[in-house]
């Protein structure tokens, strides 16, 4: 069980002291099956890390471990030089997690959903929210309850959070599912922009991503 990291050239912006996130010798087993072991990698500001791997190779598990949502692991996760256990609060304030379940309440409208989910991380006003919704192609649906939206539109509501988030590190679990081709291209652009502006992205997807400063980590090559 080993991993291949094919890094593209490092971003040219100099890093302010040490990497943003460093993972050292991480291993995890579930139900007696080793998902990954001795996993070490570094995520710097300005980079996008794609976690690849076949179904069941442990991508979702890895992301949830990184965010502190799972704790069945061995190894160290270091955030700006300190273990995430010690920096929990500051770490979480600078992190955006987007999971298989997208965090959109079906009864509320997109606007009301964002008002809460974005508002938990930063102060917002309605104009900002409306702009973000328009940017993900939901103009005209701001006030429809989310249960009337299609699968892809619900996904977009949640993706609007990306445009509002003050977090440096984005951790995205298959954000491209159910999106149409335009939306996929647009989301790739958003990720690239975030990296260019000094943020960092960890993303799982079975898509082939092409963007500058992308590196890839493939799980479960045995």
């Amino acid at each position, binding site marked *: 069980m080993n991993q291949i990291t094919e890094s593209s050239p490092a971003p040219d912006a100099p890093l302010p002291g040490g990497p943003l996130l460093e993972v050292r010798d991480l291993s995890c087993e579930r139900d007696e099956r080793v998902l990954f072991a001795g996993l070490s990698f570094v995520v710097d500001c300005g980079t996008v890390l794609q976690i690849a791997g076949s179904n069941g190779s442990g991508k979702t598990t890895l992301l949830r471990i990184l965010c502190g949502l799972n704790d069945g692991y061995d190894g160290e996760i270091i955030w700006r030089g300190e273990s995430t256990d010690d920096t929990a609060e500051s770490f*979480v304030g600078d992190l955006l997690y987007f999971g298989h379940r997208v965090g959109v309440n079906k009864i509320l409208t997109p606007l009301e959903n964002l008002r809460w989910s974005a508002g938990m991380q930063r102060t917002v006003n309605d104009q900002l929210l409306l702009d973000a919704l328009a940017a993900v192609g939901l103009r005209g649906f701001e006030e429809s309850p989310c249960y009337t939206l299609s699968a892809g539109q619900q996904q977009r509501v949640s993706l609007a959070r990306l445009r509002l988030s*003050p977090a440096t590190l984005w951790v995205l679990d298959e954000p491209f599912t159910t999106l149409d081709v335009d939306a996929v291209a647009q989301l790739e652009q958003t990720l690239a922009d975030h990296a260019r502006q000094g943020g960092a992205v960890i993303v799982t997807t079975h898509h082939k991503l092409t963007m500058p400063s992308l590196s890839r980590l493939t799980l479960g090559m045995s």
Partner: protein
Amino acid sequence: MLSASVKPSTRSAFMLTLKRDLLIAFKRKNDIVNPFMFFVIVISLFPLAISPEGEKLAEIAAGVIWIAVLLSAMLSMDSLYRGDFEDGSLEILLLSPHPLFFLVLAKNIAHWLVSGFPVVIASPLLAYMLKLPSESYGTLMLTLLIGTPTLSLIGSIAVALTVGLGSRGLILAVITLPFSVPVLIFGTLAVQASASGLPAGGYLTLLLALLAGSLSLAPLTSAAALRISVS
């Protein structure tokens, strides 16, 4: 983009969460009407099942009302975290940069306002229908006012523990009901005391103590339980 925004204060995160939960409840309407309706219907089953006679009813009235309150509080708990768990909002809650204690408290308060409070308001009417002596209406409402938040807070722990399970209705009950017994006992004793003209102050103090205890401990425990359930 990374610097211009301001991290909201915990107080404003508390208010945001409270408002959101109230908004969802009001949009659903049922969340408000149903605990109340359930309470009324369950109570009206008792005369049918036991006896329509006034004296007999008066004897069991306090107990019946408290049991109905307990059951309706417990049933209404189901909606407290389940929706958020299923749609992923719970992860947003857990990964927000605010102490989970306050966010859980906000959710509990919203839930009590919507499901517990209407029951308190309606209780004198039901007490009348069950022929409870009218001197004890005041005590009844007071005990409910102190007791129902306690029940909500206790229930919240059980819901948080069971939020990932497929069918929760019953396991929830099995966990919550035993913990609610002290509230039930002090509540009925207080009402029975006042119905027979005795002072009920002691029981009220005990109920208050239970409320204070659960107000400080339950949200913490619920928060921990939520973390466990989500992982």
